């Protein structure tokens, strides 16, 4: 940007989402919307048993049917792996719904009919549907290494918790559980594969096309150069749509048959074979002094990863971030176990473990403040981690980039406006009136609760962006990341166009194809605005200089330092100008490729926030009504307020499902998921949508692009503990087991009486 230009920056304004037009017209294409000539359809035969060895698969009758082209079984398939513990197909099935065989046929109906003719002989094995049984018995390891992943917990500690607890006047402790929580993206998984004899083209919902390409190459033993992955519009995933067998099986069927193959999962299959949020069991204790300071925090979390590991190690680590870093404390310890069970696989789901960890930590924090006889907000204002970070010594070498979720102390945050969030949120909800809203008679009880959070995010992996001034005088940003529906394309265009000094309408974005875009990390861990934003901003800076220099060379337009870009072309301070079209006609298209490794060697980049809720509990029915909800966030500078508010409101409402409704019911006797459909797996509808006020702290991060930090996942962390604390305030009943369905609430009330 240049002060001479008449261009108005759009960063900080609610520029309209660039991809909505196709979505409201119905022309935006999602994977299942695509088809190719001579395309076959695939269906999967899934295991009826939670744990079994497959002895044989008889596919003769299926293959005899007209229109059936190929059947993949564990015994005729490549020996490649989709993930370290996931073969393409395996002769061991590990949950009800695990893949056994796959048919390619002329229609979905024919493929399903063929599935019904496959005879499978199983040797049924003992199984476990919960972590305690899995850890208790070694008779039936679900994977050869045993049911405890890595054979030991992840242990992270700072200081010495024994000393910390010895210094405490009180120790508060409790146990908490969270359910199997399914993202249930409205778009079920799908894949369309086309093999031309030497090259594979794959259309699939993806949050990381370049990573998906490498997974396909490794599983299918193909050269990555012979694979193109295309990410059409994505009906969301919330992190959960990482590689499963779906695309590998479609690819293999296309290779075997020579025809394009489309594989679409049903709603039930998406529930079973997708990825859920890890259910957890957490024991946590906190040492406090009479003066209100915290001397130690110690938590042990056991996570149920289901049949396969997926992203478990990352998730279990994030469940500990609050324990290790939210409160100023010299002595902290976190132990996280990941355990296999014979249930649908858990993986990444928006905020990755942080909601589970914070539910325990922030519920306990209210208990601690009650023990001390002080207000929960005051307790947090006294103890929250400040901009200076945690006490202790930095152990990361000074020339190394700081982890976004460190354990050590001695490192400041790049920005930390948690205190501002606490105060703004408290004002907005009317926290000072909290003592007056309670009523102790009648069926409706009113209460107010709050909680706060910390979340990693921001810097991601190496990120590249290619930017060009094209033959038509417009700019193109070529990026390898995926906009998964959160609006990242829009905010990246805003940052790039502001950097150039041209309107965002002059910048096109090209993405979603591995052949045409430079490598970019996944849209994961709330890192995209930060990482891709840096790359796009850097590319725009480079291109601006290239265009200015080209106009100097080609048209003798003054000295480069006197020139700037305007909406029409390159202009000089003296009022001379030359249009972009004239420049490219002379020079041809101008292109640059920027590559950045975002991060800081001096600071931790984290996001923060505090949520507040006023609720009414009907103690006769167990129904909880949210009267008002306030979400105050420090996500640095907000690039696009309307999109950002949509992220927060959507995240809070999504987690009302986690808090009040959603739980995969897995029958312990059969291993069958009993509610793999929207009717029985209740999710929030428009009727349950609460009044949510969103507040963004005044914050500009010195490391983030345009001052921005992470935002996508943070709204999901605080809703459950906020409601739990409000419920306690309203009724005197603390419920430590999610979800707060009316029957669970009534039962808890009854137990108290």
């Amino acid at each position, binding site marked *: 940007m240049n002060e001479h230009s008449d261009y108005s920056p759009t960063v900080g304004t*609610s520029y*309209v*989402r660039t*991809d*909505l*037009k*196709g*979505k*409201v*017209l*119905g*022309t*935006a*294409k*999602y994977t*299942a*919307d695509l*088809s190719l000539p001579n395309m076959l359809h695939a269906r999967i035969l899934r295991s009826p048993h939670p744990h079994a060895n497959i002895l044989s698969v008889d596919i003769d009758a299926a293959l005899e*049917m*007209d229109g059936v082209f190929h059947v993949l079984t564990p015994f005729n398939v490549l020996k490649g792996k989709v993930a370290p513990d996931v073969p393409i197909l395996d002769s061991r099935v590990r949950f009800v719904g695990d893949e056994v065989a796959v048919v390619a046929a002329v229609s979905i*109906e*024919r493929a399903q*009919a063929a599935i019904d003719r496959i005879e499978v002989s199983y040797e049924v094995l003992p199984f476990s549907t919960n972590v305690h049984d899995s850890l208790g018995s070694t008779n039936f390891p679900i994977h050869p290494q045993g049911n405890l992943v890595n054979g030991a917990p992840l242990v992270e500690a700072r200081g010495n918790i024994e000393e910390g607890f010895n210094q405490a006047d009180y120790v508060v402790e409790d146990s908490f559980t969270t359910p199997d929580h399914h*993202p*249930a*993206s*409205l*778009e*079920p998984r799908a894949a369309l594969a086309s093999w031309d004899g030497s090259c594979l083209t794959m259309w699939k919902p993806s949050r990381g096309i370049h990573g998906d390409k490498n997974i396909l190459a490794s599983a299918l033993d193909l050269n990555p150069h012979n694979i193109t992955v295309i990410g059409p*519009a*994505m*009906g*969301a995933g*919330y992190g959960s749509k990482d590689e499963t067998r779906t695309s590998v099986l479609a690819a293999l069927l296309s290779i075997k048959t020579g025809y394009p193959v489309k594989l*679409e999962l049903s*709603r039930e299959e998406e529930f079973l074979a997708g990825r859920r949020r890890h259910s957890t069991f957490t024991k946590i204790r906190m040492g406090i002094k009479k003066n209100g300071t915290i001397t130690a925090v110690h938590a042990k979390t056991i996570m149920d990863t289901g049949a396969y590991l997926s992203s478990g190690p990352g998730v279990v680590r994030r469940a500990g971030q609050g324990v290790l870093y939210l409160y100023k404390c010299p002595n902290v310890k976190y132990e996280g176990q990941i355990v296999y069970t014979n249930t649908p696989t858990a993986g990444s789901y928006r905020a990755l473990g942080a909601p589970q960890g914070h539910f325990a930590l922030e519920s306990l924090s209210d208990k601690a403040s009650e023990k001390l006889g002080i207000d929960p907000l005051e307790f947090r204002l006294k103890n929250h981690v400040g901009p200076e970070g945690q006490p202790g010594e930095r152990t990361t070498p000074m020339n190394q980039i700081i982890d976004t979720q460190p354990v050590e102390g001695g490192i400041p945050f790049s920005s930390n406006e948690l205190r501002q969030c606490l105060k703004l949120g408290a004002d907005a909800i009317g926290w000072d009136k909290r003592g007056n809203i309670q009523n102790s008679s009648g069926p409706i009880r009113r209460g107010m609760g709050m909680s706060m959070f910390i979340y990693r995010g921001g810097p991601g992996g190496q990120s590249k962006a290619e930017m060009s001034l094209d033959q038509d005088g417009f700019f193109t940003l070529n990026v390898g990341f995926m906009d*998964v*529906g*959160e*609006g990242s394309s829009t905010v990246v265009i805003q940052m790039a166009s502001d950097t150039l000094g041209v309107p965002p309408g002059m910048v096109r974005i090209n993405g979603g194809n591995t052949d045409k875009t430079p490598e970019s990390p996944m849209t994961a861990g709330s890192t995209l605005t930060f990482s891709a934003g840096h790359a796009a901003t850097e590319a725009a800076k480079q291109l601006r200089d290239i265009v200015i220099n080209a106009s100097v060379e080609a048209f003798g337009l003054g000295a480069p330092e006197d020139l700037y870009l305007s909406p029409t072309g390159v202009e000089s301070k003296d009022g001379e100008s030359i249009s972009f079209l004239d420049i490219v006609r002379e020079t041809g298209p101008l292109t640059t490729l920027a590559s950045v490794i975002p991060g800081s060697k001096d600071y931790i980049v984290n996001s923060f926030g505090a949520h507040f809720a006023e609720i009414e509990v009907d103690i006769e029915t167990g129904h909880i009504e949210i009267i008002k909800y306030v979400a105050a966030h420090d996500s640095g500078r907000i690039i696009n307020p*309307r*999109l950002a508010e*949509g992220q927060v*409101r*959507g*995240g*809070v*409402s*999504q987690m*009302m499902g986690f808090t009040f409704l959603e739980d995969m019911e897995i029958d312990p006797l059969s291993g069958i998921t009993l509610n793999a*459909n*929207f*009717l029985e797996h209740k*999710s*929030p*509808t*428009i*009727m349950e*949508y609460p009044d*949510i006020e969103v507040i963004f702290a005044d914050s500009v991060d010195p490391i983030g692009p345009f001052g921005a930090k992470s935002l996508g996942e943070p709204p999901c962390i605080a809703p459950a503990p906020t409601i739990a604390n409000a419920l306690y305030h309203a009724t005197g009943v603390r419920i430590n087991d999610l979800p707060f369905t009316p029957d669970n609430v009534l039962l808890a009330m009854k137990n108290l009486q």
Partner: protein
Amino acid sequence: MDDKYTKTKFLVNGRQHSLEIDNRHTLLDILRDYLGLTGAKKGCDLGECGACTVLLDGKAVNSCQIFAARIKGKDVRTVEGLAQNKILHPLQISFIENDGGQCGYCTPGFIMAAYPIFESDEEMSIDEIKSSLAGNLCRCNSYGSIIDSVVHALEIKTDE
């Protein structure tokens, strides 16, 4: 495996179609697989999510629950039929301006579910509007922006 086909005539977005239809197929299959109109989405195929909502003789229906035999002689309208001569319908404009969708998978269904509300001359309260849209799921939970979008479109209509 005898596939039974029936010749069926019906209107889609004002155009007459006459097709040999597999009796096992639903209106959603016909729109998506026979006519290439993929705006209506298959979110569940069980009538539980509303992503496949279209208009059947002016009424919003889950197209995945309508078997082919039921559309004979009917007038079907899909999200693709809303814009006239490339001019977007006020609901479509309002969904863009109010950020009424994130991933967009539910968006065509919500717009078609809101269409009869928009066409109706009756004034509806916010709660009545919500109630009319309660059969449509949005897993991004953009519900606040969806309500804003519908209400704003109705306001524009009243102003005109």
